[in-house]
């Protein structure tokens, strides 16, 4: 069984996001970029499936700028076998929308014929939480989102999903799209020998035209602004004072 994992290059989760003064977006020049944390969990899960003998090959794909090669190399160093880069833009500030990404991934799926696509549940830049669901729709495949546990057996995947207020378990027919949540696993760090080895693993470069996909955005960004700031409040001197403030002033307890 082949597993396909899409990975996105995003601003590192520890970097303070700065909105550009002209309101055109977020400043991404000269900031640390990393693999989207949820995608890292998806890569880890795919590698674990391979280690258990369930998956035979793990293919990673990234869509965006040329520098996303680094993200793919990280996935290869973790243990993925092969990578595909779809160079869709030369501008680091251009975010390819989930619908276009899903169409490109559908093209990759048609060529690669994986049985399972593992996606991060959302990217921590646009926070759209859509690509996996959209890909599943375009392919007409079964869909299991927000997975915190998964088990593949006899042509199905049993997925425990993180939903509001608890957990839901469903069983989906393969081929399927599963999007992963935080609790699924803790991704490994790549070892130095594996980082070296990853440099020689195959990485194919493609373009959206190769898949016949129009990636023109459907959402025009009118403006990007800072959120309304919070002001520091007051320091209280004691626990009793704190409780009194919460009861009488804020009225929240």
């Amino acid at each position, binding site marked *: 069984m082949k597993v396909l994992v899409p990975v996105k290059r995003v601003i590192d989760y520890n970097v303070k996001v700065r909105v550009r003064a002209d309101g055109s977006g977020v400043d991404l020049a000269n900031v640390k970029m990393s693999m989207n944390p949820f995608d890292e969990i998806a890569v880890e899960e795919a590698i674990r499936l391979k280690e258990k003998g369930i998956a035979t090959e793990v293919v990673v794909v990234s869509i965006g700028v040329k520098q996303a090669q680094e993200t793919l190399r990280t996935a290869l160093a973790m243990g993925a076998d092969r990578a595909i880069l779809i160079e869709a833009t030369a501008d680091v500030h251009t975010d390819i929308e989930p619908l276009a990404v899903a169409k490109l991934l559908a093209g990759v799926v048609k060529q690669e014929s994986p049985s399972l696509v593992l996606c991060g549940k959302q990217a*921590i830049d646009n926070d759209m939480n*859509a690509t996996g*669901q959209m890909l599943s*729709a375009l392919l007409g*495949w079964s869909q299991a989102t927000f997975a915190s546990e998964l088990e593949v057996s006899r042509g199905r995947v049993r997925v425990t999903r993180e939903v509001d207020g608890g957990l839901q378990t469903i*069983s989906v027919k393969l081929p399927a799209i599963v999007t992963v949540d935080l609790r699924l696993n803790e991704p490994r760090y790549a070892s130095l020998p594996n980082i070296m080895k990853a440099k020689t693993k195959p990485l194919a470069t493609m373009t959206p035209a190769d898949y016949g996909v129009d990636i023109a955005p459907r*959402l*025009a960004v009118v403006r990007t602004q800072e959120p309304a700031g919070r002001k520091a409040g007051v320091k209280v001197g004691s626990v009793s004072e704190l409780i009194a403030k919460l009861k009488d002033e804020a009225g929240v307890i």
Partner: protein
Amino acid sequence: MAVLLLADVYHGKLATDTVAKVLAAVKSLGEVHVLVAGQGGDAAAAEASTLDGVSKVLFAADQAYCYGLAETTAALIVSLAGSYSHIAAAATAFSKNVLPRVAALLDVMVISDVTAVVDADTFMRPIYAGNAIQTVKSVDSKKVFTVRTASYSAVCATGSASVETVSAAVDSSLSKWIEDKVAGPNRPELTAAAIVVSGGRGVGSQADFALIERLADKLGAAVGASRAAVDMGYAPNDWQVGQTGKIVAPTLYVAVGISGAIQHLAGMKDSKIIVAINKDEDAPIFQVADYGLVADLFNAVPEMVEKL
């Protein structure tokens, strides 16, 4: 122009407050029809019909739509989509599972977590875990979007719309529901709780995290943790609040022994009241806290439990 609003229904019960808040968000866009899907949803459909601003309730009483399975629910919505300019729902796990699928089937982009409907084509939404707010204008023929209900006040329930039965032929062979497990009855779910008490690296050990839990239980709160506390093994990953964890916006957020790293702030800074308890008076958490207490948590938390 008309709006199709997908209602959150759990085990036959309408999430009334949630739906009433989405109604507040979309009422300026035109006539609103609410879709209640799932067998046994009669009462939910009846309740939806009383909400102000609803002109019709569409009730799809088929087993295939129970448990919020995405494939069947999305197919049902697409079968109804023809006459609507907008398809909306609350930004819950249920709708976030379904609406992007609907959008792709209609060949339009989904717009998630809308915090303001500016006009029929223009919406505001947070990106980068709320560190920036983006205004987007859709060029799609239909707008499919989810609404963050925290930004709206619920409409009243003085209406009496008609309930109409709808159905569609859908393929229900792709996914099978097995079970739903609700979170422990004594503690509210993290993202829905009115009060959240979170512990950070300062708590120091997994054993001492019981202090945080005791305070949470005293307040009837959910328990959260910073990524640092999770990475140190003090708390399980599903308690993580922050950019890589849960995004919460409770009425009261109590941060104990949390320094206030960017990634943590991203997950809780929309809370109404923030309390910080930390022995380091220069900790960045105090810059966002409404009430700060500079104290050793090992003294302050037990005292608070006792005095509450």
